């Protein structure tokens, strides 16, 4: 990656006021080891990594790992809150839209999801801030300090985008499932529609939805970046954007590695969950 773009020293010194002589830059590069050939830099970095040292941020001069770790909880918090909101909103709404297929409620819900799906994150957040903070004066614009109030807007922003996807996905999967014979079977046994829906249909539909949800955790990890920047949410997303713009490679690498780790972990959990939920697959494997 490092061979790719300009280096951090350039980026930093050009960002600020005037400019800095190449001499000073060279010195700083030497300090950071950026003057060495790319492969040497890379080898050094790998060596550090093996020893559990992810290097030092070019930008702040602080060790990458603790910096990253100190920001991770904020992002995870935001992720968890937005995913929970998404799940709690989209499953009932998706089911409702499916049950009321082609009736007013369905159209309304679908219309909303279209809107949610065609709003860029930054725009949603602007609208939310505009209404909740400027017009209604209910919530703070910024999430500088983590509190119940400050997490609402960023969570909403992320959840709106995600829910509008999931509502549609849930709706379709549920519609598909509702046509299966076992639904008729359960009806014949007099099982309540809600039980049919939640214990049978949703459980089956969940298989698909969980796949999607796990996938979106990946994109959510990246997607929080813009939102974090807008709401001044001090998490890894914002850190990543800053680092990318400033070519702070140790930071970016740490970010990539960690995201990959988290992602792999999430995937693993999904696979297990999938196994757990779908007996057809579970039993097939253990036979």
């Amino acid at each position, binding site marked *: 990656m490092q061979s790719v773009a300009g280096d951090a020293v350039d980026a930093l010194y050009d960002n600020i006021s005037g400019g800095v002589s190449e001499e000073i830059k060279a010195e700083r590069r030497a300090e950071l080891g950026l003057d060495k050939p790319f492969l040497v830099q890379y080898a050094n970095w790998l060596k550090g990594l093996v020893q559990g040292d992810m290097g030092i941020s070019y930008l702040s001069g602080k060790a990458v790992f603790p910096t990253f770790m100190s920001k991770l909880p904020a992002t995870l918090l935001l992720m968890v809150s937005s995913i929970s909101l998404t799940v709690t909103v989209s499953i009932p709404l998706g089911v409702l839209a499916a049950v009321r297929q082609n009736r007013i409620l369905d159209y309304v819900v679908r219309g909303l999801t279209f809107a949610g799906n065609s709003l860029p994150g930054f725009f949603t957040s602007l609208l939310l801030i505009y209404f909740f903070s400027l017009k209604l004066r209910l919530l703070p614009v910024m999430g500088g300090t983590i509190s119940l109030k400050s997490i609402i807007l960023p969570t909403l922003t992320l959840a709106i985008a995600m829910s509008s996807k999931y509502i549609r996905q849930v709706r379709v999967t549920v519609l598909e499932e509702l046509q299966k*014979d076992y639904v008729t079977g359960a009806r014949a046994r007099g099982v309540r529609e809600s039980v049919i829906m939640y214990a049978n249909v949703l459980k089956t539909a969940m298989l698909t939805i969980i796949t999607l949800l796990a996938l979106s955790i990946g994109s959510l990890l990246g997607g929080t970046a813009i939102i974090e920047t807008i709401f001044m949410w001090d998490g890894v997303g914002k850190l990543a954007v800053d680092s990318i713009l400033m070519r702070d490679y140790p930071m970016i690498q740490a970010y990539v590695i960690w995201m990959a780790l988290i992602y792999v972990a999430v995937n693993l959990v999904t696979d297990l969950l999938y196994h757990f939920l779908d007996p057809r697959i579970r*039993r097939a494997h*253990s*036979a």
Partner: protein
Amino acid sequence: MGALLTATGICKHYRVGRERVHAVHDVSLRIDRGECVGLVGESGCGKSTVAGIVTSLIQADAGRVLLEGRDISAGSGRRRNVCTAIQMVFQSPADSFNPRLTLGDSIIEGLINQGIAKQEARNLTLEYLGLCGLPKTFADRYPHQVSGGECQRASIARAIAVQPKLLICDEATSALDVTIQAQIIDLIAKLRRELSMSCLLISHDIALIWEICDRVMIMCEGEIIEDGIPSDIISHPKQEYTRSLIEAAFLSSAWGGCCS
């Protein structure tokens, strides 16, 4: 008559919860060309599983299946050899049709795979549907639009349309009333004569098996416990299970008989 199909030492286990189910346990069987073999046994004794293994749709835990001397066991990578040489009528006909295809399209598919031209394949499809007692219009229906028996007949039509060397019927006539059942049995008998097609009939209808099979195999708890010509088995059942089966069959036919 040479052997069309031989299976040796096939085994299949499933795990349900913590228990191990021996669905099929060390079963060997042989079907000759033109022969009609019946497979009878209590429900859950492993008949469908044997059928699945023979058609290599289920991968056996052990054992080999040879079709005309070639290994076609699932997992041997040779499944395509079987192609349409073995056909099966599934026990649950409704599930065996792709819900997004019309019955006609599902049937045509096998014919086209044999290299038959489209138009001709369509004609054949209609013809076989007719032979199974279904009007032409059924070719354009979807599986959910037909009755259980109609679906089963379509399933039979699909199996015989490609003129397989071996036809496996897993309860192929269970959803049919006697008149149509008779029609189907006649059809199969005719195909056997004309194409020297072999048959493996899985059925609970002992009367039917006795009527048309050259040989009967009795299965019990995953094993074949008896194998012989029907009349022998009826008159000299070797196993306790066989005996009770035959008695029950007599009894039920007696009910029918007493009323007429």
